């Protein structure tokens, strides 16, 4: 016997099990927002601690580039930029979806945002790698 709650549901049991709701997507958007939030947390804390420590030591160009060039730091910096900008892209998308009501304007803004975040992700990675590969030269 179906329970009262099951009877009142609009979705079929299969739809409920898939958990995708009427829009067929959204769960993975939400989940990616949370996974990137989780990744941001240690990465940004590490970045702040490193930056403060470099600053306290005088923040010379040599010290900074040598720090970026250490393989672990290069890796974490690239990871941080990817995670932060993916997180920001997902977040900005929700804000636009909530506040921009006109269909064409909304589509245009969403596309522009996607391209923008892709561009600054690439730019940040290029800069990190260039510093890492040319440090001390």
């Amino acid at each position, binding site marked *: 016997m179906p329970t009262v709650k099951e009877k009142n549901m609009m979705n079929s049991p299969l739809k409920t099990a898939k958990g995708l709701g009427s829009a067929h997507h959204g769960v993975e958007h939400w989940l990616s927002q*949370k996974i990137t*939030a*989780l990744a*941001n*947390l240690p990465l*940004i*804390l590490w970045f*702040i601690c490193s930056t*403060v420590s470099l*600053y*306290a030591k005088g*923040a010379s*160009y040599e010290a*900074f*580039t040598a720090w*970026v060039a250490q393989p672990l730091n290069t890796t974490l910096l690239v990871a941080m*930029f990817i995670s*932060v*900008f993916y997180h*920001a892209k997902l*977040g*900005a998308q929700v*804000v636009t979806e909530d506040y921009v009501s006109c269909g064409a304007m909304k589509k245009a803004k969403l596309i522009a945002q996607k391209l923008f975040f892709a561009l*600054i992700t690439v*730019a*940040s990675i*290029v*800069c*990190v790698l*260039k*510093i890492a590969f040319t440090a001390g030269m």
Partner: protein
Amino acid sequence: MSDTVSQKAKRPLSPHLQVYKLPLTALLSITHRFTGMALIFGSLIVVGFFFAAASGEEYYNMFLDYAEMPIAKVILFLWSGALYYHMCNGVRHMIWDTGALLTKASAMKANYVVLLSAALLTIGTWAMACPCWKG
């Protein structure tokens, strides 16, 4: 089908934002969104810094000279506060997703925990960076 008056009366009303004094929980909720958007601009400054460093020593030093200006310090301070607020409230968001802390009373308590943690982290970071330790 049109509703009867009694059915209409039972429905919850969403707050009329122009005349409704936001409770702290709602204020902190919109602040999470506001700080998220502000942090996008902050992250562009970080990219700008890496761009300068990747362009060579003189650009790196030029960037740091700008960063020493009082207005830059003020922006950096507000930015660090926004980042720590968004971070602490983000952790609360993830706790909410587990189903915990969702009652009005526990949300109210967590409001203060989030605000206090963010304030302490901000002050702690600036204390660590303070030139007074360099001696």
